[in-house]
């Protein structure tokens, strides 16, 4: 779907400049610190800010903007999962799902039984929302959104109420759905590792603006805007090669090197984005062989920068091909190893650092 959101919205102290004009395919990660306007962008697309002076176009159709009444939210064929479950309190879980299934509008319509089965909603169907736990409510809300016909799904931190186990189960299902039915997803998450590994594009909300960014650029500034949310780290793009069932590791190609990541990532898209925290990367000036760390990547130091917050810690940018990693190293190690720009190093990455949303 060709999606354009362009204009400026102001609400008291809050202002957001939207500069999005992108072909959304698969999962698009919408990242940024809290309060930067991620939810506002979703509300603009969904039709809940229809009177804002922001233009919204989808596949050439004007949803809102100058010259013409806005298309109301219920006719936009956009399904939204909100941060809160927003279940209808007067209906059972089944009633909530039926509410969505009855919608008449264009878009992909998933079979009731499939959604119920996958999200394991069967035992919950006859319960009232107040009888459900937070995670169960969110699962019902997710199912409800999937059952309403849609051409685009907007997920505003849909997993925040879920435990890690269900999260790991549901995330691959969502990405598979999105590819199978060709319904793109815009996915907001405060967890950069969670969302990046399932995303193909990244939109960044920062400094009063939201726009698509090159994922690799997320780590370009040492404490880039995306990192401000979590911690210093680089975002790298890899390609899935194969899954080694014996060890339970996925092999990813990264600029000619191989990275081993726990779990089966075959369900992810052709391009896998990984967030690698700088504190999980160590540097060696000689190639290391007899070490338990699987992920060893050769590269060259491009730049270094002292961190402001932690005394003695230095962020080192290690380039490889078109991309780079960030490592957090003590000043003492910098001096002892003679690390500075131009030095060839081997970056050692702890596998546990390669956490993904899958």
């Amino acid at each position, binding site marked *: 779907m060709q999606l354009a959101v362009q204009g400026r919205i102001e609400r008291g102290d809050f202002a957001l400049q939207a500069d999005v004009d992108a072909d959304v395919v698969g999962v698009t990660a919408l990242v940024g610190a809290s309060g930067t306007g991620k939810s506002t962008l979703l509300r603009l697309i969904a039709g809940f800010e229809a009177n804002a002076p922001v233009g919204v176009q989808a596949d050439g159709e004007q949803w809102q903007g100058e010259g013409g009444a806005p298309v109301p939210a219920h006719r936009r064929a956009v*399904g939204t999962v909100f941060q809160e479950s927003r279940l209808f309190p007067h209906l059972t879980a089944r009633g909530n799902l039926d509410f969505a299934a009855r919608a008449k509008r264009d878009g992909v319509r998933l079979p009731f039984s499939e959604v119920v089965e996958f999200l394991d909603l069967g035992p919950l169907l006859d319960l009232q929302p107040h009888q459900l736990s937070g995670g169960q409510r969110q699962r019902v809300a997710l199912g409800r959104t999937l059952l309403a016909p849609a051409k685009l799904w907007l997920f505003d931190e849909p997993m925040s109420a879920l435990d890690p186990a269900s999260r790991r189960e549901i995330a691959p299902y969502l990405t598979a759905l999105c590819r199978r039915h060709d319904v793109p997803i815009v996915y907001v998450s405060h967890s950069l590792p969670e969302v990046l590994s399932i995303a193909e594009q990244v939109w960044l909300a920062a400094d009063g603006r939201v726009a698509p960014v090159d994922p690799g650029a997320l780590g370009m500034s040492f404490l880039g805007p995306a990192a401000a949310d979590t911690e210093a780290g680089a975002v790298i793009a890899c390609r899935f090669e194969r899954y080694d069932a014996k060890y339970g590791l996925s092999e990813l190609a990264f600029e000619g090197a191989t990275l081993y990541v726990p779990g089966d990532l075959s369900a992810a898209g052709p391009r896998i984005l990984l967030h690698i925290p700088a504190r999980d990367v160590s540097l060696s000036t000689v190639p290391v062989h007899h070490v338990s760390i699987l992920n060893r990547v050769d590269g060259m130091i491009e730049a270094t920068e002292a961190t402001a917050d932690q005394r003695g810690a230095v962020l080192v940018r290690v380039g490889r091909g078109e991309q780079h990693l960030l490592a957090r190293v003590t000043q003492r190690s910098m001096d002892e190893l003679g690390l500075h720009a131009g030095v060839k190093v081997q970056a050692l990455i702890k596998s546990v650092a390669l956490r993904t949303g899958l």
Partner: protein
Amino acid sequence: MGIAADIAEAAWVTGLLALVTTAILLLVSPPLAWWMARTASKWRAPVEAVVALPLVLPPTVLGFYLLLAFAPSGPLGAVSHGLLGVPLAFTFTGLVIGSAIYSLPFVTGPLASAFRAMDWQLLEAAASLGASRSGRFLRLVLPLNRRALIAAGVLGFAHTVGEFGIVLMIGGNIPGETRVLSIALFDRVEMLDYGGAHLIAGSLLAFSLIVLTATYRWLRL
């Protein structure tokens, strides 16, 4: 006709009037209250003021103007009597119209308050699930506010049962047609029949007390 039969007839007219009025109000008030609760129109304040007028005006003032409008030469009477053949002044039909106007704020007001307190996030969710404006109203707003709807209906009913001034002005005192209990009570007192007056007054008092107690208990549930 015996005294008891006379009172029974007035009670019947009163009950029927309250029932028909309440039914009309439960059709008219929810959309009106929803509009008042949600609109940003500049007409909201004037419309709310008009709806609230019966709260502050003496019923006789309202009755006086309705009487003029209902007269065969008046704007409403001319249309109703002239075109439809239905006279309004001193008829049950006219009484229903007057009662509906008079009790409107007692049904619309509480509903508008309930609607204003509604969780608008649920409305957004319903819209995102493809529910149209009317679909959201019928499938979400009304069921979510069924308690307020019932309470408003009961208040409208009880208030119609208790009206006097407006009936006196536009209905007169026609047995079986426009003589309601409050008028019958007035008659009894005029005739110094305090026994009959006690019967009617006591019944109305007990009825109102019971209905209001039940309503307030229900609202707190």
